[in-house]
């Protein structure tokens, strides 16, 4: 690993090999205990060590080959002339880009029908539920957090708290008072927005990294309270039997007044899944629409100005207190909507669903996608969430690595690694250019590297 980041252009093959040997030596030091030896519980509950020389050897070999390959690729790349930073996009891309949004929305609207045509009624359930709904939830959360992080530049590591507030508002009010999903959806959003203001108020003076850690602490506090305040939230056991949303009052069940009977269809659970799919799709589209419109209002402009330079903002007479609080509140409100949808879809929630890793995943979607970019969030959600689901399906790997091999075990490891690698490759995320919100005569793409941001 030693030679990986050296930006030397004129490297000979011997240099590359020497770096690779160094990297392998470092990797040996790092891995000799943690991979070379395995700790196992014995019968007497003490720990026994067993050696794994084969595994250690193959990993070191992989490190060596990997460093040599990276060295060669970097050497070749350094020889090629560098591309100008602000190059215009390819003409084909420029010609197709206005049609991208309608095409994508059309495709997603038709997705359940395509899935049913290709995979049949039973097979489609998995595609619509695990891929469609799951990805759309994260797109919605990503777009919600995008208001806080991408537009206002306030780094929030505790976003999952608002997701939890939304989910618990719906779950508690629906199970205790029997209120319907359609009444509780706005209530959950309002409660979450309220919590956004409560948690936003104390951190108004903080910036950047400090803000990140305090919001993380707030997220953890809410989770710990949900775990420990058993009378209120039922603790670790969570809340089960949460009522499912109805089709404007018509439930999705096999009874005579159920959805299938009313519309004269044969009963199948797929209808509910399809309904949930369209529900979260509409919710996400509302989020995107509101975000796009807000960016054109004075408040949206103020958010973006705040992100670029807080001191200049104050000098120009923008009220930073209300600007920050509205960003927190609106971001939290969308988190709350998504949370109540999540509770309604699962029928069961527990504090386990609202851990820090969830916040990190949503933040990763926003940042890896490219701050402030709506398309970026979509790309990152599809890649991260869809990638996780696909990892679960890779059963053939068991034949390569043996029966005990479980690819899902590696998902978080791969997730963390890809976060680091994407940052190294594109520190501003995958979609790093963005449309300017204000322009004179013609729209010019703003390259991300020309914009100072994230000063929170």
């Amino acid at each position, binding site marked *: *690993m*030693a030679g*990986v*980041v050296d930006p030397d252009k004129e490297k000979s093959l011997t240099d590359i090999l020497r770096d690779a040997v160094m990297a392998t030596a*470092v*990797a040996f*030091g*790092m891995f000799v*205990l*943690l*991979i070379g*030896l*395995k*700790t*196992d*519980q014995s019968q007497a*509950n003490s*720990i026994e*060590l067993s050696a794994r020389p084969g595994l250690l050897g193959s990993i070191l070999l992989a490190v060596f080959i990997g460093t040599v390959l990276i060295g060669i690729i970097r050497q070749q790349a350094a020889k090629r002339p560098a591309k100008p930073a602000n190059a215009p996009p390819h003409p084909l891309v420029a010609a197709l880009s206005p049609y991208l949004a309608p095409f994508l929305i059309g495709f997603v609207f038709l997705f359940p029908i395509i899935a049913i045509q290709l995979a049949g009624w039973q097979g489609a359930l998995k595609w619509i539920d695990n891929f469609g709904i799951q990805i759309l939830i994260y797109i919605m959360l990503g777009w919600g957090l995008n208001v806080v992080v991408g537009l206002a530049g306030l*780094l929030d590591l505790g976003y999952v708290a608002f997701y939890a507030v939304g989910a618990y508002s719906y779950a508690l009010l629906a199970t205790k008072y029997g209120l319907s999903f359609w009444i509780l959806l706005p209530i959950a959003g309002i409660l979450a927005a309220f919590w956004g203001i409560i948690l936003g108020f*104390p*951190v108004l*003076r*903080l910036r*950047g*990294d*400090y803000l*990140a*850690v*305090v919001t993380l*602490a*707030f997220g*953890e*506090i809410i989770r*710990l309270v949900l775990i*420990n305040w058993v009378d209120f939230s039922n603790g670790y056991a969570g809340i089960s039997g949460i009522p499912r949303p109805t089709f404007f009052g018509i439930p999705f069940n096999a009874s005579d007044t159920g959805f299938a009977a009313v519309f004269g269809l044969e009963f199948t659970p797929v209808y509910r899944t399809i309904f949930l799919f369209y529900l979260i799709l509409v919710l996400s589209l509302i989020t995107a629409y509101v975000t796009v419109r807000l960016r054109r209002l004075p408040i949206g402009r103020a958010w973006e100005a705040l992100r670029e330079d807080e*001191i200049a903002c104050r000098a120009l007479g923008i009220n930073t207190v209300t600007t920050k609080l509205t960003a927190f509140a609106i971001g939290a409100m969308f988190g709350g909507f998504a949370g109540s949808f999540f509770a309604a879809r699962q029928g069961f929630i527990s504090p386990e669903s609202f851990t*820090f890793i969830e916040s*990190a995943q949503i933040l*990763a979607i926003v*940042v*890896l996608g490219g701050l402030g970019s709506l398309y970026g969030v979509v790309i990152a959600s599809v890649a991260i969430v869809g990638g996780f689901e696909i990892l679960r399906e890779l059963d053939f790997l068991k034949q390569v690595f043996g029966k005990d091999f479980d690819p899902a*075990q*590696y998902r*978080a*490891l791969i997730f*963390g*690694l*890809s*976060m*680091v690698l994407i*940052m*190294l490759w594109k*520190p*501003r995320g995958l979609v790093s250019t963005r449309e300017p919100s204000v322009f004179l005569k013609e729209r010019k793409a703003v390259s*991300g*590297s020309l914009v100072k*941001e*994230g*000063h929170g």
Partner: protein
Amino acid sequence: MEVFVQQVINGLTLGAIYGLIAVGYTMVFGIIGMVNFAHGDIFMVGGFTALILFLLVTGALGFGAGAVALALLVCLILGMALTGLWNWAIEKVAYRPLRGSFRLAPLISAIGMSIVLVNFVQVAQGARNKPVPPMLRDGIKLMEKDGFVVTLAYKQIVIFVVTALLLGIFWYVVQKTPLGRAQRACEQDGKMASLLGIDVDRTVSITFVIGAALAAVAGVMYLIYYGVISFSDGFVPGVKAFTAAVLGGIGSLPGAVLGGLIIGMVETLWSAYFSIDYKDVAAFMLLAVTLIFLPQGLLGKPEVEKV
């Protein structure tokens, strides 16, 4: 009164561990202005390294008093070296290319690295808690009243002595050696330091190595004190140590140790007199309250906003 004295002893022990981790946060923040999010997990890696080394040595030499002492010494020295190597490699691969880049990039990279470390250890060593055989079992009875005995356990003495000794050495290094001078110079003005012939990259690397070595010591102490470690044990002590660093004044080394001791005390006293379930909530609240009302910390310099 006796209960209180016992809690103070326990709190100071815990505080010594937090203080050792906090020094790593505060040094890295001082020199490159970044919250090293993966530092808590470096502490956990240090703990696992110590666990395996301890089992190796006691497995070869038996479990006599001399063997345990030797094992702990090996854990400390080799553990510091190997954990330092980890942090050196992480800094070089994941943080250095992003220095001077977009401000959020190193933080995101550090969060990714934290997730990588946790899951790497989980995959490589399994998800179960790893206990070590109890060591240094007895203690000194300080006072006794109504059947309640206040003890100062031998392991607590070991923790105090080792922490004090290492922090002393570390203090000497930072204050009196050319390396320490280079470090403080980079902290004040990196560009100027490099103009004056200081290798900033090397200094930053060494800072990460020292921070990780102290975190590894904390890992050994944690293992002695609790006798068990698991892959997820880095997160909460990490956040608490960060709280300690902020409370003491981020960038200030004595502040980090002081903050660690305060956090340790608050945590044990809160568990003893209020509610053990909410002890983490207390520590996190303390972080928020400090940042809101005393952002420069107890011993830190107030941050001047420059335009």
